[in-house]
């Protein structure tokens, strides 16, 4: 019941609909009593031989009218109650999505996307079930059950009602018991099914090994064994599941029997009429559903409550990065002074960055070099304010980056990530990501600088080609170049290329860098790269190793050092030679 109180705010919000819906349900519960009563009355009049055409027409009209009214009401309560539960689902989903968009990367590091998806789908639907079917079963089992029993007791005979109800608790008890048993067996069956699923997954992933060792027959045997287990476990479920209907009909049958035997006695004694007896049996039929619904209700509430708790916990997660109260609402511009003594990612023990200091003047290019895990991306993440909580400061345009509104800070930065993620939309929409109203000229201009324009024209649908997960598959280099165009379109104050030229060949890389230089005279650029050829013209190159700067300077300075940078550069030259098959270019 707890969950109904927890959802109280929603019921209050939709009180009109719920009030209407529940009222309609109650009206239906009352109207349902009409047909059995009319059957009883007509039967009595037929039995007594005093049925007239007029009264028949009257009774049948009442019956027809009540049936029609019930049809209309049943349609509307569904819309009221189920419809409201759908608005709850819609609202929860929108809330969750809103929440997701405002959570920082640290939130996503802790959770798997699959789990977040599950909250927004399964949990939402369990809560929606509670607000829909849960309310329905609660109201329906109380009202229908109550009214039917009242009708039987008051309009017919309370003694017979008591007698007829004797077997009913057995039904509630046994179905409740079956339910628990079923739950247990169902759990086992699910586990067996999941084993089968895992086995299939494993064999298909390891299909090459299977084929190598020619183990198909044995593997199929193993599959048969597991699928046999699934069958056996499911037979146990079926054994319990098949108990429900026979038990219900047996209990109802006995109840009928008692009704007829004792009812006959009362009829003979003149306490009731034969028509009453027929009507009584019809009422009895109406009682089956409310009794079953009670068991069902418990189940729905339990699931809904657990799911709602999960959703609330998720929504209660606080944002890590928040703007200061008097944050600057200006787009930063100017020199960048980076001065970090130490930074450790939340949840990790060793610092990822130590003693990183550099100054980058407006319009200059910074190159960052280092192996995976050397700290390149960590620097960028701090710069974009995905994480706070470091020793030191980052001053951009005369203010610490934390003093700006995060939105304004990010407005200045055009970021091209390592993993080039494109959305399922047209290439045009992907490039015009920051400004869907961008002119064609702007989009094409960005594409041209990123050296992807010609590629795009080669696609049959040109800029309208759909890409992303559900679109055509592009090569890694094409995706990277579209990502670059996307960042360029926003004309950023600072462009960050996070190893985003790794999949394009050397010539294209050169062309992109040259075009960038031409188009972005005043703007600052940060390039991280494995490939040093991309950094030759940078004003400053920092070489990172295990989170700290080991070499610093221009290309020429670093080459003259004959250290780490020099070694890397030589090896890369050799590597390129090998890639070309040993021919010098």
């Amino acid at each position, binding site marked *: 019941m707890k969950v109904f109180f927890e959802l109280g705010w929603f019921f209050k919000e939709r009180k009109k609909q719920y009030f209407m819906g529940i009222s309609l349900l109650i009206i239906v519960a009352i109207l349902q009593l009409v047909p059995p009563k009319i059957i009883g009355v007509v039967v009595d009049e037929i039995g007594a031989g005093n049925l007239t055409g007029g009264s028949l027409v009257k009774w049948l009209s009442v019956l027809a009218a009540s049936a029609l009214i*019930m049809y209309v009401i*049943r349609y509307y309560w569904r819309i009221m109650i189920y419809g409201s539960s759908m608005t709850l689902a819609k609202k929860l989903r929108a809330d969750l999505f809103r929440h997701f968009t405002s959570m920082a990367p640290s939130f996503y590091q802790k959770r798997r996307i699959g789990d977040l998806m599950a909250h927004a789908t399964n949990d939402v639907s369990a809560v929606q079930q509670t607000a829909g079917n849960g309310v329905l079963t609660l109201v329906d089992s109380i009202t229908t059950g109550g009214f039917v029993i009242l009708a039987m007791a008051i309009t017919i005979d309370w003694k017979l009602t008591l007698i007829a109800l004797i077997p009913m608790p057995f039904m509630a008890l046994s179905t409740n018991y079956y339910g628990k048993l079923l739950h247990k067996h169902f759990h086992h069956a699910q586990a067996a099914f999941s084993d089968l699923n895992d086995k299939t997954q494993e064999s298909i992933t*390891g299909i090459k090994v299977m084929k190598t060792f020619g183990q198909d027959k044995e593997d*199929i*045997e193993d599959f048969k064994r597991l699928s046999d287990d699934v069958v056996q476990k499911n037979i146990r479920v079926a054994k319990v599941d098949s108990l429900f209907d026979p038990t219900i009909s047996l209990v109802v049958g006995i109840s009928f029997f008692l009704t007829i035997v004792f009812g006959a006695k009362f009829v003979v004694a003149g306490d009731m009429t*034969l028509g009453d007896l027929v009507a009584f049996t019809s009422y009895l039929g109406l009682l089956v559903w409310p009794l079953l619904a009670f068991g069902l209700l418990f189940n729905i509430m339990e699931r809904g409550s657990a799911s709602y708790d999960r959703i609330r916990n998720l929504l209660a997660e606080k944002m890590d990065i928040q703007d200061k109260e008097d944050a600057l609402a200006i787009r930063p511009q100017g020199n960048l002074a980076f001065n970090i003594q130490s930074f450790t990612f939340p949840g990790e023990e060793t610092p990822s960055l130590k003693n990183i200091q550099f100054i980058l003047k407006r319009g200059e290019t910074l190159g960052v070099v280092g192996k995976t895990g050397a700290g390149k991306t960590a620097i960028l993440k701090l710069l974009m304010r995905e994480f706070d909580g470091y020793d030191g400061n980052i001053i951009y345009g005369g203010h610490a980056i934390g003093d700006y509104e995060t939105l304004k800070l990010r407005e200045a930065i055009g970021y091209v*990530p390592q993993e080039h993620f494109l959305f399922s939309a047209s290439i045009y929409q992907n490039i015009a990501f920051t400004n869907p109203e961008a002119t064609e000229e702007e989009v094409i201009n960005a594409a041209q600088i990123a050296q992807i324009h010609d590629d795009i024209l080669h696609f049959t649908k040109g800029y309208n080609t759909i890409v992303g997960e559900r679109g055509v598959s592009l090569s890694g280099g094409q995706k990277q170049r579209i990502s670059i165009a996307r960042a360029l379109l926003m004309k950023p104050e600072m462009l960050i290329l996070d190893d985003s030229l790794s999949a394009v060949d050397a010539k294209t890389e050169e062309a992109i860098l040259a075009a960038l230089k031409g188009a972005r005279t005043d703007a600052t650029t940060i390039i991280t790269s494995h490939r040093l050829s991309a950094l030759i013209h940078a004003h400053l190159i920092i070489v990172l190793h295990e989170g700290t700067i080991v070499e610093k300077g221009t290309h020429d300075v670093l080459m003259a050092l004959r250290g780490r940078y020099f070694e890397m550069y030589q090896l890369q030259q050799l590597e390129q030679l090998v890639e070309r098959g*040993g021919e010098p270019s």
Partner: protein
Amino acid sequence: MNEDQKITLTGKDQWQVLKRLLIYLKPHKKSISIALLLLIITVLGDIFGPLLIKMFMDDYLTPRHFPTNPLIILGVTYIGIQILNAIISYLQMLRFHVLALKVIQQLRIDVYTKVHKLGLRYFDRTPAGSIVSRVTNDTEAIMEMFVSVLIGFVQSGFLIIGVYIAMFTLNWKLAIATMILLPLLYWIIYAYRKYSAVYYMDMREQLSQLNAKLAESLSGMSIVQAFRQEKRFRDEFDDINEKHYKAVMSSIKLDGLLLRPVIDLVYALGVILLLSFFGITSFNDPIEIGVIYAFITYINRFFEPINQVMQRLSLFQQAIVSASRVFTLLDDHELDPRQMEDTTVKMADGRIEFRDVTFSYDGKTDVLKNISFNVNPGETVALVGHTGSGKSSIINLLMRFYEFEKGDILIDGQSIKNYPKQTLREQMGLVLQDPFLFYGTIESNIRLFNEELPDEDVRAAAEFVQADKFIEQMPKGYKHQVTERGSTFSSGQRQLIAFARTVAANPKILVLDEATATIDTETEVAIQASLDKMRQGRTTIAIAHRLSTIQDAEQILVLHHGEIVEQGTHQELLAKNGLYHKMYQLQNGLVQEVE
């Protein structure tokens, strides 16, 4: 997103799929007959109960005539029928259930067997997840349909027939009159199916849009935030959320119009029909109250199964789509390369010859161009080259993972296509770059389903590759649990277990795809030593990423763009000062000025 590809099936297609599904019932004829017989008995029980009460009402209660014995017999019979009916209907339901489970099991095994027959090409173009779905989830959906829709149909069919027979014997005129309910019900079911198919499709489509948007936004959230597009994404999500809501509301409205409420309305119509018939007849003739009772009860019974089946009609649609996907897989022609099953061909020495082999995966670009080379029995040939140079393709062809058309591969002078599959699998051992371990124990991973292999051989194989030391240090030794993919072992340990697996199979030809993963030096030494031992007495083809491991190979082939560009021993190739030489320098980190 293979699975979400919309499958549009015409009514005729649906019928075809259903018919093909029903073929799976054939082996269970006997079981079905028994179940049907039981079903008929329960229907009879359902029919007779009300008849007995009718008898009681008309013959005894109305005339107020209560002889003891006949009434006791009547009562006992009634209770007896109720109890028997409960038992029989339990047995009947259980039997149908088990039947459905067995049918699905067969279908599952068929699909799984077929999966094993498919060639690697199929696996290349189909995501593993969707193949798994075919085997498990789709078949599960079909079972749902068998259990709740098909069986429900059969039950209601029989019950309706039974009820009509009873009504006809009681009063044939009235029975005929109630016949008008049938076309009405048929029309409702037909209309519901027709419209619900449309609305249901729309709802599912919106739901998949919603989930796709959610999944995509979550995966791309860092981009969305970096480019400050949160608001736009919220708006877009709200838009899809709203569309989904509208689609759901339409289907709620449809359910309200054509599902339970309308069936209840038809029920009321049935009652009105009965009462007016009895009422009008009663103006002239006396009516037995018991008959009215019986008819009213029958009409009640009549509607129960119809309601149940209609609630679950959407499962039917889903199951048909699932079944058509399963059948598409069963009908796929992308099979393993065929072997001439000529059992007389035996592998003696393990001499390998590639003769002018040209190969392409897609039929357009050749990944291997006129490859020819010879490997003498017991010798080792190493393949080196950059990614995409064609090394792996050579192995793929040798292992018969893919069919080739141009040129030939000979083993001991015989075309590889002439060997029975079994011989090839037994005599050629492939060790993969990423050693794949299966869920089970270390022992089961070494024997890999070969139950006849004695325990000593398993141990001997492990000792041979020097894996025994670390295995015996495990708490349970050879019975130590291997979890999914062997994630609790280091990559070196996994590699050693995979070696032992190959040694246990004792192949004549060894095919090695050397690991690129960085392994700690200690294990690397162990692995290298094991590899050397394994190669003794076996013809070996090895893909080498680390040139240091193949210096003693009798022959090294340097591949570039699908062609052999250099060929010779380590020393010869170094002397050539060509591509191999450069690769060697690169790997040894020999830094020198490069012009």
